[in-house]
């Protein structure tokens, strides 16, 4: 019995000696960049946009022969992990990428409900992370290692309130939002605050809510119409936007409807059709009529994947661009991952006036960018036209 096991071990050892010779892998410094994206789950379109943008970015980097740090080119690898649009999966994915794959930087997760807990992991392990799309202030708050690629809701709310006041001169607004979803609820509150600051208390004449996956909004819309509001603000996602706008028009709503960056998906117009033409929303970038680098990105993406990229893809692209700038601004990579991560974090905090396709970016101390919002008008052809740019 024992003779057999010893023999087996001996055989294996010999066999392994050969495999070691056959596969002579060394451990050299490779820059690994983690992507934490919702590839499956509730919002697969967001994950797809993230993945595609990252792959395009990798293509460019590979073409250039890798990232150049201190005159030396390092190969780059992407580690794409699926977070299934779940908080605990995002935490697992981050822990795995940080401790197992030893990534230098993490880009993602996109939604706040994954980015808030995942940011905690990244900060605890002192690994720089940049969430391109998360708008919840808690994602970056008191976390020196966590950054984001988009503006926050406390900025977007006042931008919209000011825009409506200047553009239409209205005094009474109505808000319709999803009370069960983090993003619309937060933005609705910030808009209400900003509007009441401009026009006095009570100027938001209707503040109506519904719950995720509701499809009939007629009771709320009837109340809104009866309240005498001049404009309706609804910071909802594309599938709800179509329903709200169509139902509002059926019930006889005549005034404008204004939205936020969650409208920015390509699906909004497809689902909503003519009802959405002529409406305004604030977002990170406007696809129609874009120029320069933004146009180049959009054309390339459209050619490769067959549709116009939405804001998630553009923000991911920019976040990766910031990561690249930060890494390339270093003098050298030590190969010791902890030191390098800290160096990259400091370099990211130092990035000034980064010219991205979604505008210029400089990080505040909290890791939030100072950048302009774009007001987009949905044209009569259903394209997202640049209307005006609002800067802080």
């Amino acid at each position, binding site marked *: 019995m024992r003779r057999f096991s010893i023999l087996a071990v001996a055989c294996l050892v010999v066999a392994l000696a050969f495999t*070691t010779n056959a596969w002579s892998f060394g451990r050299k410094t490779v820059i690994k960049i983690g992507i934490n994206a919702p590839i499956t789950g509730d919002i697969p379109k967001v994950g797809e946009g993230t993945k595609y943008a990252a792959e395009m970015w990798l293509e460019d980097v590979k073409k250039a022969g890798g990232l150049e740090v201190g005159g030396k080119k390092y190969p780059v690898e992407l580690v794409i992990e699926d977070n299934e649009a779940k908080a605990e999966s995002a935490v697992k994915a981050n822990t795995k990428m940080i401790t*197992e794959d030893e990534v230098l930087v993490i880009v993602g997760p996109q939604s706040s409900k994954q980015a808030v807990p995942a940011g*905690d992991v990244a900060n605890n392990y002192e690994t720089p992370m940049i969430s391109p799309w998360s708008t919840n202030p808690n994602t970056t708050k008191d976390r020196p290692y966590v950054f984001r690629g988009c503006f926050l809701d406390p900025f977007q709310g006042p931008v919209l309130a000011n825009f409506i006041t200047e553009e239409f001169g209205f005094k009474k607004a109505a808000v319709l939002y999803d009370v069960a979803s983090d993003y619309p609820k937060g933005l609705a509150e910030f808009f209400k605050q900003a509007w009441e600051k401009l026009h006095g208390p009570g100027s938001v004449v209707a503040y109506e809510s519904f719950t995720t996956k509701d499809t009939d909004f007629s009771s709320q819309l009837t109340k809104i119409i009866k309240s005498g509001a001049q404009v309706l603000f609804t910071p909802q996602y594309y599938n709800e936007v179509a329903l709200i706008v169509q139902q509002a028009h059926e019930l006889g709503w005549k005034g404008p409807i204004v939205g936020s960056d969650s409208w920015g998906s390509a699906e909004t117009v497809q689902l909503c059709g003519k009802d959405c033409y002529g409406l305004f929303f604030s977002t990170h970038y406007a696809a129609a009529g874009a120029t320069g680098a933004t146009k180049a990105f959009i054309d390339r993406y459209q050619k490769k994947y067959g549709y116009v990229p939405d804001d998630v893809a553009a923000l991911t692209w920019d976040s990766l661009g910031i990561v690249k700038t930060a890494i390339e601004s270093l003098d050298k990579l030590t190969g010791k991952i902890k030191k390098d991560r800290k160096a990259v974090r400091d370099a990211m905090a130092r990035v000034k006036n980064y010219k991205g396709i979604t505008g210029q970016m400089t990080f505040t101390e909290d890791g939030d960018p100072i950048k302009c919002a774009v007001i987009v008008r949905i044209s009569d052809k259903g394209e997202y036209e640049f209307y005006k740019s609002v800067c802080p």
Partner: protein
Amino acid sequence: MESTKSNPTLSQDGFWSRLRSGLARVPVIGWLAGGLCAVMVEYFLGDALSYYLGLPKIPVLFGFVTMLKKPLLIPSSTAYVILVYLIPLVAVGLLTAGPANRLAAFLHRRALWLSAIIHLVLLYTIIHIWSDISDYRLLLLKLTMIAIMLTLSINVINGYMGEFSCSHPGFMALGAYSASTMTLILFTNDKLFGPALLPPALGPYCYPLALIFGGVVAALGALVVAIPSFRTRGDYLAIISLAFMFIVKSVIENLEFVGGPRGMGSQPNWSNLPTVFVWTVLCVWVINNFVRSTMGKALNAVRDNEMAADAMTVDTRKTKIVTFMFGAFWAGVAGGLFAHVLRYVNPGTFGIQKLAEILAMVYFGGLNSVVGSVVGAVSINLLSEMLRPLELFKWIVIPLLLILVMIYRPTGLIAFREFDVRKILRPKQ
């Protein structure tokens, strides 16, 4: 059964059959010794070994992830697993079979608790050393153990009592939120509740109280489901319990003081490995005793025929109330632990998706069986991590496995099996 296994002359005198009969003689304590040896080998030699095998790092989950990501590394990953886990485990198991059996026999004659504690200490040492290699393993272990608690607690209701209850994510949410609220108010300076009321140093000692509080709140919530269960069964109860889950979710969404849909964060990091391990063991022990008690037999009677059970003097109302509250209590405790592992909870986590996960684990593992629940929770959790590199196809492979299990073993992998600790720990010679 016993004699064929331990008698080598009955089978062919080949290498494999001798190995097989040799392995059958190894008692649990021998396997634990082998496991300990394997993780020690990995702890001290793993890094060097993986280097010489051309692996980028120590394979984190038995080489699965590495294999799926880079098929070229399949031979070296397999070799690593064989060298580090299989050979020490089998070799030590076989070599120490004699003394291990004598030790097991000695412990067998002593009190059960002594033997159980010795085995558990060994088991804990193994998982501690194993998880020391990487924090990813640690996190995975903690979440897996929490999943074991959840699966067991739903098995009491869905398996032993035979009611189809869908409210488990709701119970878990109640536990998670109550335990977090307590630790945040009392021991943490945070954004939601302001400064701590008690000195934070006391916190880790009072953490069990917070977990029990979470469990109790969940148990109170379970009353809401238990009372309608007097009148309805089957589909109707499933719908009522599903409604309960949604009620809990929307209540939390509308409660501003716990953060609403934004969720609640910055819980202290008190769910470390020993804590989770102790609670899991406690949960397995208590639930196992519960289902083997008179009450447990009453549960089966209610499942098989409620009217007959009633006629045979089983108090069906009491049975149902107690079972629902008992199952919910452990779900609440698991929720509390979960919240302190992730250190963030939001109501969206405790929705249909969570329910599907819990149900998959319990039906995969097996109804009416403690071992089945453990097997189900561990395998679904490990599988979903191991198959991570497959991305979208993961959600084809796992459901396919579930379907296959449902075809070939309709009640789950290990169903209707009693978990007798004394029998498991006994010597094999």
